[in-house]
């Protein structure tokens, strides 16, 4: 017991590339194994359940379409969290930023503003990104000016943002012609994101998301801003000593992160749903955190991780209807993947020694 408590971690001199690349896969494999027990508990056959999961996610043109549709906002929230976390700015508020972004998009795109579509369309997108950015600016400023830890503030603002959206949906943005649950006025048809594939819901938002992932990767590696973000994220004190404007970099990073999450909201209303409801996002903002970690905070990895998580969500839906395993299995798999990924990454970097 004593030696278990005091096992020591020795940093490996060099991390074998194979180990680093294999980490996510090992983590996922372990997760699927561990969660098999949950499937058994629900009284369903394990291999059939997993097979259904995979099939419903990737097994047909329709399935892939659904998965990619779900992946679109996840790529964006994943990027949002990856950008922020790399700077050690823990943005847990992507969910709220997503909803505010959607609200702003509806405010512009569902309004009667008499501007031509080519102007209104980018304006709508910009409004959504700005809304997300501004929401995150508050905790960011609180951190740089007042030293307030951003984890709790961004989290609490999620609740505030959702209440605000709810208030708007009950009032000024309400679609008075709709019955049932409150929903917003719809986005004007000419401002909707176009479909990419026929007979599927995949929309232009996917292209935007992937393009942004590529762009972010380039920014990280080749630009001064990317250099600043990496420096501040690695060691803010040393960055400050070198003359890098740490607070300004933090703030810009936060604005970028918020804008990406807001854009996820824009995509959901303008691309998938057409209007805003309170239950539009099943926790995409929180999933973004897991996706960012699974991807090792790498923008290109985020795309892959987002598709993986999207597949889980889509697959779990269908699987649940077929074999009676609750859909929450997807959430369990995602969270266990996150924890396993942390352990796997650590094991790749450190050797474990008992006394």
């Amino acid at each position, binding site marked *: 017991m004593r030696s278990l408590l005091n096992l020591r971690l020795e940093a490996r001199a060099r991390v074998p590339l194979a180990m680093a690349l294999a980490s996510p896969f090992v983590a996922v494999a372990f997760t699927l194994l561990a969660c098999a027990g949950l499937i058994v508990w629900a009284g369903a056959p394990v291999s059939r359940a997993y097979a259904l999961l995979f099939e419903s996610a990737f097994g047909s043109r329709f399935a892939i379409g659904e998965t990619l549709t779900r992946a679109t906002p996840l790529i964006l929230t994943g990027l949002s969290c990856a950008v922020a976390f790399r700077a050690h700015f823990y943005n847990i508020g992507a969910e709220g930023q997503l909803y505010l972004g959607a609200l702003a998009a509806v405010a512009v795109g569902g309004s009667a503003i008499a501007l031509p579509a080519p102007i209104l369309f980018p304006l709508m997108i910009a409004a959504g990104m700005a809304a997300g950015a501004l929401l995150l600016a508050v905790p960011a400023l609180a951190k740089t000016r007042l030293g307030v830890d951003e984890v709790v503030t961004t989290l609490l603002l999620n609740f505030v943002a959702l209440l605000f959206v709810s208030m708007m949906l009950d009032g000024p943005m309400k679609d008075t012609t709709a019955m049932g649950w409150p929903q917003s006025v719809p986005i004007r048809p000419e401002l909707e994101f176009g479909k990419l594939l026929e007979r599927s819901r995949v929309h232009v938002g996917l292209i935007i998301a992937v393009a942004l992932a590529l762009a972010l990767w380039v920014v990280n590696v080749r630009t001064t801003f990317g250099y600043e973000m990496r*420096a501040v994220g*690695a060691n803010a004190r*040393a960055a400050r*000593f070198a*003359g890098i*404007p740490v607070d300004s970099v933090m703030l810009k990073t936060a604005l970028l992160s918020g804008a990406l999450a807001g854009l996820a909201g824009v995509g959901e209303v303008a691309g998938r749903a057409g209007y805003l409801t309170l239950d539009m996002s099943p926790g995409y903002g929180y999933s973004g955190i897991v996706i960012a970690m699974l991807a090792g905070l790498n923008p290109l990895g985020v795309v892959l991780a987002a598709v993986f998580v999207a597949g889980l969500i889509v697959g779990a839906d269908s699987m649940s209807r077929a074999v009676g395993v609750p859909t929450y299995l997807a959430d369990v798999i995602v969270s266990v993947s996150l924890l396993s990924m942390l352990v796997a990454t650590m094991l790749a970097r450190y050797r474990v020694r008992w*006394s």
Partner: protein
Amino acid sequence: MPPPVLRLSGITKRFGALVANDAISLELASGEVLALLGENGAGKSTLVNILFGHYVGDAGAIEAFGEPLPPGDPASALAAGIGMVHQHFTLGDNLSVLDNVLLGTEKLWRPFSRRREARARLTEISKQFGLTVDANARIADLSVGERQRVEILKALYRGARILILDEPTAVLTPQESEALFATLKTLVADGLSIIFISHKLDEVLAVSQRIAVLRQGRLVAIRDPAASSKAELAELMVGRRVDAPVRKLTRGVSTPEVLLSVRELTAGGKLTRASFEVRRGEIFGIAGVSGNGQAQLADALCGLLPPAQGEIRIGNRSISPDPHAFVHARVGRVPEDRSSVGIIGDLAIWENAISERYREPRFARTGWLQRDAAKAQAQRIVEQFDVRCSGLDAPAKSMSGGNIQKLILGRALVDDPQIIIASQPTWGLDVGAVSYIHGELLAARERGAAIVLISEDLDELFAIADRIAVMFHGVLSEARDDWTVTQIGLAMAGGAQFAHAQPA
């Protein structure tokens, strides 16, 4: 002859490829003061950390008072009567002296702490050994010397019969060091046996009965101080003949032009008043025990700390408290904490080489990093300043401390700065690296730079500084070029009158 109180046999410890201790066997006799001498990196701290149980040796055994000592367990070491005064004090700053002493001395599951009895016992012990300290004081409010006393009291409170002191005089004034040696004599008279680690030859010769010399992890010699000389010990420590110190205190090549002037500077709460001028081609030394405001002065001189009052002028112009402004004004800065402030460990060596200048046109155009130019600059630094690394793309933290410091020094010096601020630049480095850095600073001085050298190492200051001023309680004394060690020691302990030049 009473049996040895401590016997180490074949202690070996490896950190990766580095052999920190190589089959060291040593005995400590009852009532003796044994000095462990060696330069930085020789393995002295590693050895005593294994003895006390912070590390586990890869091979070897320890016997204390005839009983085998279970490895890797400070609780066992404490139970066997071994106490340790660590180089970096193991004290909780926000807790009281009594809390720190009491910790771990009562069974963990007792429903209440016997604080009154503990306080009484602590007072008794501190009187017995002349180590006065207020049991209710918060550690953060104590001076460095007082904190060391608490470290010692912790060990005595637990009935230590063997006391290890790891570089205890590194943070003391010369007078406080004398007081410590007197305390050690009292402890020995009470029957304790002492292991005293140092790299300072004078102390070791004055205080110990035997000197064990470590070099590169091996025990190379055991000497009787009465029969040994500084030259012999220095040669054993380094492994080759060591000549007299690099340079004597001279008037140097300074000209009247003032490059850096500091007026009535107050900053960071701890720096109360500093005024001085540094001329072209001069090394201006600032001495003082840690905690008297030097860190704040260093931060202000690097642009990290805005002054509450006063100003810093470079040439004729006041400079704004921003690191970038200082870099732009051609100030080369070497910070005290090389691995957490001087470099960004996770970034590549070439990325660290341009960290102060990445926005300059030669390294960045319209927001795009010019990698080739940056790597060329890094290559220049690596070659010119003898930085040993496994490639420019390797993470900076993969280098040894000495090479990290050479990279930082190179980055500061490569573009020929007019002012250099160096804070504890040779702390923790081996003789070779120290000598190299001193050489570079002297060369910069020849080229006409104005250099501020803040150091707790008096030997270093006497070796290369032209003038020295002393920091005490936030106030900087006048600068003199004719200090004696006694005078400077007294100034470091608060005797400001010694800051004035003595009549011939």
